C-alpha cells in the first residue's frame, strides 16, 4: 500500500496550465455562475439589449406577416437573381451556427479543457443561429405553409421529395443538425438544470427546473452513463458539423452556374462557417464576461485560443478565394473567367473588395498576440469578420447569379427595404433568444467547471485520469 502522498509523487496528476484563474472552490464556482439566473436583479445592459432586440423582432414578425400575405415579390429578387437575401442570410446564419458544435464536440474529443467555460453559450448560439437560418428557406418558399412537402410523408398524390436534389439534402442536413445540437445542448445541461432546481427558492422555479431536469440527482451511476453518451454524441456531432455546411455548399456546387460549380466549395464553406462562428462567439463572449464579471472563467487564454482558431480558418477562406481565381485562370473556361472578372471589377466589385478587406486583410492583425489578448480589438476584428462573411455570401449567391451564360440573362440585384428588415429582424430574433437564455439557463457548464478545479479546491484537477490511491 502506498500513501496518497507517495502515490502523488510517483504518478503526478496531469496538471493542465490553469484554464480558470482566481481562487474558487466547488460551491463558490457553482454559486457564481448560477447567480446570473438565481439573482432577481437583472443588469441594465441586459434590458437594453433585450429591448432593442425585441424591437427588431417586432419588425421581423411584421415583415413575416406581410410576406405571407403579399408574397416574395416584396423582396428584390427577380430573374436571373432569384436567390436573394433570404439565401444569403440562411448561409450566413448557419455558418455562425457552426462554432458551437465545433467547440463542444471537436474540442471535447481533443481534450481541450478550456472549452468548458464557453461551450454552453456557444451551443446556445448555435441553436439560435440555426433557428434563424432555418426560417429563411421556409420564408423563401413563397407558400411557406406547405413546408411539410419537403418531408417524405405518404400523401394522396403519391409523390415523394426528389432525394437526388441537394435542396432536399439540405432539409435533412439542417434539421438533423438542429435536432442533434439540441439533444447535445440539453443533455449537457441536465446536471446544471438539476442544480438550478436544488437552488430555486420559489415554487415555480422548482417545478419548472425540476421538470426539465428529468429527476437528475447526480448519482455516480447517472454520471457514468452520461459521460459515455456525451463523448459518443460529440463523436457523432463532429462529422455532422462538417457535413452540414458541405451539404449547404452542394446547393451551389451541384448547380452549373459559373461561380458556383466548383469542387472547392465544401471545404471552403466549412472553413468560412467556422470562421464566422468563432467571430460570433467572440462578439458574444467579450461583452458577456464584462457584463457578468466572469473574467476568471473566460480568461485571456480563451480569447487567445478563439482568435487563433479564427485566424486559422480565415486563412483557409483566403486560400479559397485564391484557388477560385487560380482555377478560372488554369481552366481557361471563358465563362468562369468572365464571372471572376465581374466579381472583382464588375458592377458589384466593391462588394468583393470589401470581402477581401474584412476577411483577409483586417484579420491579419490576429498574428499579433497583443491583439488576440485585447478584448476591444478582438471584438472589432470579429465584427469585421461577421460583416465580411455576410458580404462573401452576397458575392457568391447574388454576384454569381447576376452573370449567367447568356448575356441576355445578365441582370442586377437591388435590395428592397424589406430585404434589410428581414436581415435586421433575424438579428432581433437571435438576440431575444440569447438574452432569454442568459436569464433563465446556466450559461456555463457548471459541472464541467467544477471538474476543472484543482484538487485542493475540491475538483478533479481538470482531469479525470487521476487514480485515487487505494486505502
Amino acid at each position: 500500500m502506498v500513501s496518497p502522498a507517495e502515490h502523488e509523487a510517483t504518478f503526478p496528476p496531469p496538471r493542465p496550465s490553469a484554464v480558470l484563474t482566481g481562487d474558487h472552490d466547488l460551491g463558490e464556482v457553482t454559486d457564481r455562475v448560477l447567480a446570473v439566473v438565481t439573482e432577481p436583479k437583472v443588469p441594465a445592459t441586459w434590458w437594453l439589449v433585450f429591448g432593442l432586440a425585441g424591437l427588431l423582432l417586432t419588425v421581423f414578425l411584421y415583415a413575416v406577416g406581410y410576406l405571407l400575405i403579399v408574397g416574395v415579390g416584396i423582396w428584390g429578387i427577380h430573374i436571373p437573381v432569384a436567390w436573394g437575401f433570404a439565401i444569403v442570410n440562411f448561409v450566413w446564419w448557419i455558418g455562425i451556427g457552426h462554432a458551437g458544435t465545433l467547440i463542444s464536440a471537436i474540442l471535447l474529443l481533443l481534450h481541450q479543457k478550456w472549452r468548458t467555460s464557453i461551450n454552453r453559450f456557444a451551443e446556445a448560439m448555435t441553436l439560435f443561429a440555426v433557428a434563424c437560418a432555418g426560417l429563411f428557406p421556409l420564408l423563401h418558399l413563397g407558400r411557406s405553409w406547405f413546408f411539410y412537402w419537403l418531408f417524405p410523408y405518404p400523401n394522396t398524390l403519391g409523390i415523394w421529395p426528389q432525394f437526388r436534389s441537394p435542396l432536399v439534402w439540405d432539409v435533412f442536413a439542417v434539421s438533423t443538425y438542429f435536432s442533434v445540437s439540441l439533444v447535445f445542448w440539453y443533455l449537457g445541461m441536465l446536471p446544471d438544470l438539476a442544480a438550478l432546481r436544488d437552488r430555486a427558492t420559489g415554487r415555480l422555479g422548482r417545478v419548472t427546473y425540476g421538470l426539465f431536469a428529468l429527476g437528475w440527482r447526480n448519482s455516480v451511476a447517472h454520471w457514468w452513463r452520461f459521460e459515455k453518451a456525451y463523448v459518443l454524441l460529440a463523436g457523432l456531432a463532429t462529422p455532422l458539423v462538417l457535413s452540414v455546411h458541405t451539404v449547404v455548399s452542394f446547393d451551389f456546387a451541384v448547380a452549373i452556374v459559373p461561380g458556383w460549380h466548383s469542387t472547392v466549395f465544401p471545404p471552403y464553406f466549412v472553413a468560412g462557417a467556422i470562421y464566422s462562428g468563432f467571430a460570433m462567439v467572440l462578439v458574444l463572449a467579450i461583452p458577456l464576461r464584462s457584463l457578468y464579471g466572469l473574467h476568471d472563467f473566460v480568461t485571456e487564454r480563451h480569447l487567445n485560443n478563439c482568435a487563433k482558431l479564427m485566424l486559422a480558418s480565415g486563412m483557409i477562406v483566403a486560400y479559397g478565394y485564391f484557388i477560385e481565381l487560380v482555377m478560372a485562370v488554369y481552366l481557361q473556361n471563358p465563362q468562369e473567367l468572365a464571372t471572376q472578372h465581374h466579381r472583382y471589377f464588375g458592377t458589384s466589385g466593391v462588394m468583393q473588395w470589401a470581402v477581401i478587406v474584412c476577411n483577409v486583410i483586417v484579420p491579419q492583425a490576429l498574428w499579433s498576440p497583443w491583439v488576440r489578448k485585447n478584448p476591444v480589438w478582438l471584438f472589432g476584428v470579429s465584427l469585421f469578420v461577421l460583416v465580411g462573411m455576410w458580404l462573401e455570401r452576397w458575392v457568391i449567391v447574388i454576384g454569381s447569379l447576376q452573370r449567367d451564360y447568356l448575356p441576355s440573362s445578365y441582370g442586377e440585384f437591388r435590395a428592397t427595404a424589406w430585404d434589410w428588415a428581414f436581415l435586421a429582424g433575424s438579428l432581433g430574433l437571435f438576440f431575444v433568444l440569447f438574452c432569454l437564455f442568459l436569464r433563465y439557463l446556466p450559461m456555463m457548464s457548471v459541472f464541467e467547471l467544477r471538474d476543472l478545479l484543482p484538487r485542493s479546491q475540491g475538483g478533479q484537477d481538470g482531469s479525470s485520469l487521476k487514480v485515487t490511491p487505494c486505502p
Partner: protein
Amino acid sequence: MPVNRPVGLLAEFADADDLVRAVRELRAAGFEQLEAFSPYPLPEAAEALGYSRAAVPAVMFIGGLVGGCAAFFMQYWTMGLNYPLNIGGRPLNSWPAFIPITFELTILTSALCGFLGLIAMCGLPRYHHPLFNVDRFNSASRDRFFLFIKAADPAFDSTALSELLKRLDPIGLEEVPE
C-alpha cells in the same frame, strides 16, 4: 413493514476521496445496495461500485445502423420502385445521391437513441425521489459527496454498518424517510 421505516441511510462527505474510500470499504464489507452522488463525474467511484460496461454505446450503434439502413431503403424504394423517375437516363438506384441523407439520418437516429437510451437506463424521467426529502441532499449539485446505503441491503441492519460508518466518519449522516 412499519410505515416510517427509512428507505436507507445517507452519509455525507466533504471530499471525493472520502466518498471513494467509503464506497470501497462498504463494498469490501459486502454491501451491494449502494448509490453514490457527486457534483461532477467520478469514474473512480463508478469503478468502486462495480459498474462495468455501459450499454449506451451499443444502443447508439444499433440505433444508427437501423436508422441508416432505413434511410437508404426509404430513398431506394421511393426513387427506384414506388415512383421511378427517369432523369437524364441515370440509374434509378443512383446510390451516391442517396448518401447525404443516409448519413444525416444515421447520425440523427443514433443521437436520439443515445439520449433516450441514457435517460431510460438512468431510470429517468422521475420527478420525485425519496432522497429529495433530505434537505442536505441539495448540495450534491454544489459541493458535497453522498453515499446512500439502501435499507434493502441484506446487511443494512447489522452492527457492521454502524461500525464502518463510525470509522469512515462522514460529516453528516441522516435517515432517508420514504
